[in-house]
């Protein structure tokens, strides 16, 4: 298991996490159904506007799934930032993880380690977290 992702997307997610700091940022990367390819980055609004929680607005969520359906896409990556802790799924992340087919990407925008950025990916299935390799392509 691994995630292959374009450097431009990594940079954009890191940039978004810094721009929205101290709140957590979030979003998805979509790809053609069945391909597993992370091809279209779509930043989402963190409706919780919180440094410790993120949530897609329920209306945005419905619109997202309809868009994905209409375009024959799937959600390949669900990402969010942690602002003060490491890029590892929290208990809340695990409890909420509802897309068994998605890569859950975590970035940490905590300042004490800046400018080093943690960018990690996981599968979260039935409460079990498995970290996977991230390979970044240019």
């Amino acid at each position, binding site marked *: 298991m691994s995630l292959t992702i374009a450097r431009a997307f990594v940079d954009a997610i890191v940039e978004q996490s810094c721009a929205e700091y101290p709140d957590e940022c*979030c979003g*998805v990367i979509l790809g053609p159904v069945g391909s597993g390819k992370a091809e279209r980055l779509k930043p*989402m609004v963190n409706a*919780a506007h919180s440094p*410790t*929680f*993120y*949530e*897609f607005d*329920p*209306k945005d*969520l*419905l619109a997202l*799934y309809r868009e994905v359906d209409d375009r024959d896409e799937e959600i390949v990556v*669900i990402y*969010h930032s942690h602002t003060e802790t490491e890029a590892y*799924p*929290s*208990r*809340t*992340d695990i*409890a*909420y*993880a*509802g*897309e*068994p*087919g998605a890569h859950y990407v975590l970035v940490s925008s905590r300042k004490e380690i800046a400018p080093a950025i943690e960018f990690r990916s996981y599968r979260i299935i039935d409460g079990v977290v498995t970290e996977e390799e991230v390979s970044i392509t240019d």
Partner: protein
Amino acid sequence: MSIEVRIPTILRPFTKDLKAVAANGTSLTALVSDLDAQYPGIGDRLLENGALRRFINIYINDEDVRFLGGLDAQIKDGDSVTILPAVAGG
């Protein structure tokens, strides 16, 4: 009265992988109860102690049922129901 209910990936193990199923009910409570009768166990993934689970969003047409009275939300012929897992975390 048959209502189309769209099922998210995470609940498809209950519906034999069907993306959409038909169910009956003039309220959300009745609809969930009919779904659970057809696909045993799915009700428990939608409700907790008789209330909608926090991690699950249910929509009637375009509206989140939390704004339509929750489980008391009324459903009429021609409505469609969509179930989605919340995308959220800490």
